[in-house]
């Protein structure tokens, strides 16, 4: 629902471990939405329905289902996979994860791992909400009722580029309907309503 909040899915059968992680991360002051799933099927379902940035995984749940896990990773290439370690695993197996942490690790270290990976890889869609000059040009024409094609011709760019700008405008403002964008544009003085 809220596109600016990052989500963490935890694939872990133990509710105690899950709740511990939830409490640890929530108390750290970082803002994540949490989902708990206890098998790989549910995880797959969740990844289809929600935008998840990080999956924390109990490695034993994928140990014997590596093919399935590989497929899942392929389906959701942007997700970061972190193993939750509380038993001995073969080091070569643990390479299927982007990172691992041990439940005995310091809280701060665990949080650091989740956040570090997050910030390195996630392209943030301008949470400040300011539009670039080009985006404003596109917004102007679109809210004047021009089609993507007309906008592209007028600005001498490809339709594909118009679409990208359009998507960025929507992501930055959180407004998706043309009528809503018009209200935004008029209110911000981008266009005049006459």
């Amino acid at each position, binding site marked *: 629902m809220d596109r600016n909040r990052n989500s963490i899915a935890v694939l872990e059968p133990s509710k105690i471990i899950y709740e511990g992680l939830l409490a640890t991360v929530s108390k750290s002051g970082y803002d994540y939405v*949490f*989902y*708990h*799933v206890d098998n790989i099927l*549910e995880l797959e379902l*969740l990844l289809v329905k929600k935008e998840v940035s990080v999956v924390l995984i109990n490695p034993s749940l994928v140990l014997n289902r590596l093919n399935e896990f590989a497929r899942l990773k392929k389906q959701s290439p942007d997700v970061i996979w972190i193993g939750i370690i509380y038993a001995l695993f073969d080091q070569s197996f643990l390479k299927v994860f982007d990172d691992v942490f041990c439940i005995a690790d310091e809280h701060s270290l665990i949080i650091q791992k989740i956040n570090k990976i997050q910030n390195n890889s996630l392209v943030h869609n301008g949470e400040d*909400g300011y539009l670039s000059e080009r985006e404003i040009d596109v917004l102007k024409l679109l809210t004047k009722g021009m089609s993507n094609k007309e906008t592209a011709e007028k600005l001498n760019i490809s339709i594909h580029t118009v679409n990208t700008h359009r998507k960025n405008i929507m992501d930055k*403002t*959180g*407004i*998706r*309907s043309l*009528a*809503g964008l*018009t*209200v*935004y544009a*008029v*209110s*911000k003085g981008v266009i005049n*309503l006459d």
Partner: protein
Amino acid sequence: MFISEKTYITKDKKMFDLIVENHSLLLCLQHFEIDFAVGGKTVDELCLENNIDPGAFIIVANLYNGFMPEDHALNTIKNIHSVLLFLKKSHSYYVRDKYPELKYYLEKLKNNHNSKDHQLIERFFNEYFEEVMEHLKYEDEVAFPYFKSIQHAHETREKNSFSVNEYRNHHTDIETKLTDLKNLFLKHIKLESELNTKRRFLTTLFELEFDLKIHSFIEERVLIPVIERLEAELNG
């Protein structure tokens, strides 16, 4: 299923406990025309007493508690009347209750301050309001009679006037604009007006958004699959 701090509702749960835990269920009861004086009755008992399909009730009530139904759960719905009743009643809740409420607060916001932004928002809302009313009318007059006719195989059906896709597109529009309105208020436009009215407006917006989400989920992911199943049974 996904994390939710609320109880997963089953037929033996006591309705009283469920309401105390999540009072949005009152709205769910209202849409099923079940009175709030539930005493010590279980979900099953209440459904029986009110002539509501328990399978349908449990699926819907669980959505209010944040649980999506498993696919096989849809097979527990024996009769779509209860689902249709729920949808119809939620329509009248939108038409008679929530949208007029939003309109009222918008008026009130404008009362003391009439700026360009007020006019913009009002215009956006009024156009949106028209669209919603039109859609609800379409559902009441075209979609629901169609759904109803499926349950009665002997009645003649007018298939052509109805399209599942059209139905879906309408919904997406309605929800998108509602979210837009929320984001305009929370992110971009600071209307000059008293906070209390603004908060009430937003609270109503959130309540409506919550109920509309459940509403479209039920129509698209519960009603339509169940109808398709019933149709298949009919033809086979």
